[in-house]
């Protein structure tokens, strides 16, 4: 189950509450829900957020990968896995690739084919639903109103088309000049749509076809102008812009102090020259 939705919409909360409800049920307590039917779970794994363990001096990304490795090595089909924003600790493309292959592995590998909630803002992952039978997309519903985002806090089937990151940055109070510039960059990037299938040799050709079809579909839904296809690792985007996006994407305004936000703005401006 892949959950997409913008930052701040509550993906992490959905993940945690699912874990907590299952846990409470198996402790023997009633649960905060209208009703719940729980198939017994033998283990719960979580990979949530990217901010813990920084004090221990390990890099965020390394911690993340350590935990992911632990999950893949110890999960069983009876386990519940909650993954939140896996891959956010590295560059966008690396992160997306890792998240993608992780999802595939958890689906395809019988010994670890566990129940998994995979929250991500890489809405590219929604395409997995078309390729794999047991992958479902859900998204946290939001409404866009006059350029601002309203969080409805409802989970509905289907993928999110948009990460609303810039709107959230706006709500967090980033200066307008940064927001406007980010919008420009985003529309630039969106016109260079990403292609993941070509980079993944292991996927069967049928799946590739399926995915191509899915991609067409999703592209038409998104009313994106089909411009030239871009290979995943051969980017001809301005490197400064990529740095900027990476930095913005790796940022969670929820977890930032005002000082950190100021520092980020300074850094963003420096990147832009």
């Amino acid at each position, binding site marked *: *189950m892949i959950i997409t939705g913008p930052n701040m919409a*509550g993906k992490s*909360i*959905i993940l*945690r*509450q*699912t*874990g*907590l*409800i*299952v*846990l*409470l*049920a*198996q*402790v*023997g*307590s*009633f*649960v*905060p*829900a*209208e*009703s*719940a*039917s*729980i*198939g*017994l*779970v*033998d*283990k*719960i*794994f*979580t*990979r*949530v*957020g990217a*901010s*813990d363990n920084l004090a221990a001096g390990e890099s965020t990304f390394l911690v993340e990968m350590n*935990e992911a490795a*632990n999950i893949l090595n*110890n999960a069983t*089909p009876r386990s*519940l896995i*909650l993954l939140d924003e896996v891959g956010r600790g590295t560059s966008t493309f690396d992160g997306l690739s890792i998240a993608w292959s992780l999802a595939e592995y958890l689906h395809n590998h019988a010994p670890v084919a566990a*129940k998994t*909630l995979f929250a991500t803002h890489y809405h590219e992952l929604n395409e997995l639903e078309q390729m794999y039978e*047991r992958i*479902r997309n*859900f998204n946290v519903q939001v409404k866009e109103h006059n350029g601002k985002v309203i969080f409805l*806090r*409802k*989970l509905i089937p289907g993928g999110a088309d948009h990460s609303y990151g810039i709107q959230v940055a706006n709500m967090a109070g980033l200066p307008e000049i940064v927001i406007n510039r980010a919008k420009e960059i985003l529309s630039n990037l969106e016109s260079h749509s990403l292609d993941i299938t070509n980079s993944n040799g292991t996927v069967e050709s049928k799946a590739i076809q399926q995915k191509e079809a899915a991609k067409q579909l999703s592209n038409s839904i998104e009313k994106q102008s089909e411009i030239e296809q871009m290979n995943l690792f051969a980017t001809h985007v301005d490197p400064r812009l990529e740095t900027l996006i990476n930095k913005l994407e790796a940022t969670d305004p929820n977890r930032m102090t005002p000082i950190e936000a100021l520092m980020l703005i300074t850094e963003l401006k420096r990147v832009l020259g």
Partner: protein
Amino acid sequence: MTARKQTPLMRQYEEIKGQYPGTILLFRVGDFYETFSDDAILVSKELGITLTKRNNGGDQTPLAGFPYHALDNYLPKLVKRGYKVAVCDQTESPEEAKKAGRKIVERDVTEITTPGVTLSENLLQHNRNNYIISLFWAGPLIGVAFSDISTGEFGLSEVNEAQLDSLLAAIQPSEVLIQAKLKNKLADAFHQFNITTIDDWVFEGDYGYKTLIDHFKTHSLKGFGVEELEVAQVAAGALLHYMKETQKAYLRHLRRLYAYESNEFMSLDPATKRNLELTTSMQEGGTEGTLISIMDETCTAMGGRLLRRWIMRPLKRITPIQHRLDAVDELFANHQIRATIREELDQIGDLERLISRICVGRTNARDLKQIERSLAQIPKVKSQFANRETELLQDIAKRLKLLIEVQDRVSKTIVDEPPISIRDGNMIREGLHVELDEIREIARNGKDYIARIKDQLSEESGIPSLKIGYNKVFGYYIEVTNVHKDKVPEHFIRKQTLVNAERYITPELKEVEEKVLSAEDRSKALEYKLFEELRLFVAEYADDIQQIAQALAQLDCLQSFAEVAFKNNYAKPEIRDAEHIDIKKGRHPVVEKSLPLGNRLYQMTFC
């Protein structure tokens, strides 16, 4: 040792200090606890007390100390910072030392407090277990033993390297014991723990096994179901060895070992426990915003501790989960019963820790009184649910034994409001013990008693002016004026001649004098003796009381679940042996408390 001439006191200090490496030694000198040398420098820094110097045979030794009555204040501070602290007391009075021809009084360590081994209320949190864990590596297998000396729990397990993390996360030990030779070989992850090293020989041969069967007075460990866990036994032996060394007492409340089975429970890795914020929050490490902060509606300390253990270790098999859910359901549906049970539980003390202190002897009459009052609650609690249908509630009711004999004997022996001290009397009821009543009578009414003797003597001898006086040289005496000299009975012994009177004593008067003068001391001593008898009597019931405490703790957790479910509008989940998880309108238990109502519903179904 250097050639410099030490004072006898410092020689004694060094000798005792040498026996407790890695431990801060608080050395009683008169009304102070003193520390010397490196200890003094450390203690003065940690406690913010003045560092001075002491002349030691020409040398200047650093010294820092505090008045003895500040011990309860300072000792916990040191232990909370992870230090081990030995308290060294004077074991004889200066008079006794003089009599025995010693220049300084004898001293010995009476108790060692460590982060993982303590009974001190100043160090323990009432709703949290304080575990110490002992680890023994035998190839790929790790023997694990852990105990909470304040509750008498003692568990064994054998795990592999991967399971160890999860076990440590579940137990959250305050102190970890390892073999001395492994000290520098530990993985980095261990440095978050308070490590104590134990001499290697303690982990060798069958020392551990022998220590265990010796303590439990059994021929084997079969009765505990841990006979096969040979690697864990080594760890358990070392743990028991260490706890005995530090407590300096027979730990009679450690009554049983049990095998801690990881297979029965859902496995939660440390990251998951942290991420889900079960008992500590990711922000400050406090309990704000944690699952436990929402779920804890327990009324007793035992219940609070058990709830934490339950939440850290969810079950994996349907039957026991279903049993708990059914019991919760019954308590959920019957508000009146739940309310009454909560009221009665509220008045029950921390039976586990009370009985531990009573067994080890660090206790007082108030503790015994608390046991009595708590036991008196049991029939009231039991009557609330004894007729309930649920299997688990019936089982709990069965285990809530009535200990009328303990209750009665404490009630008959100890006064209603006993003092904290056990050495100063006023604990034992009047009318319990003939000799005690007599002594008390004498102590209280010493003068009246002497006056009665005077009247009696005066009547017998026919001397109306007969007086009884007192002086320091020969205590109580009888004074007869020269006018009545000829009426003095033969058994009077003359002691002194004055100008117009004679002073006498009699064996009877000396006996009375002895009684009056020492009555107070003797009544205190006798009260202490009677208290000790009662303490040992109650300690014999340690096993029963621990079982009752466990049953109460379970009941408390179940009613807590029911109470939370009622307050927060939770639903009974259906547990199935199936793949699907289907949650309708689930809410986040913690977040729903801080967000407005309409803002918190998520509907989800998935497989």
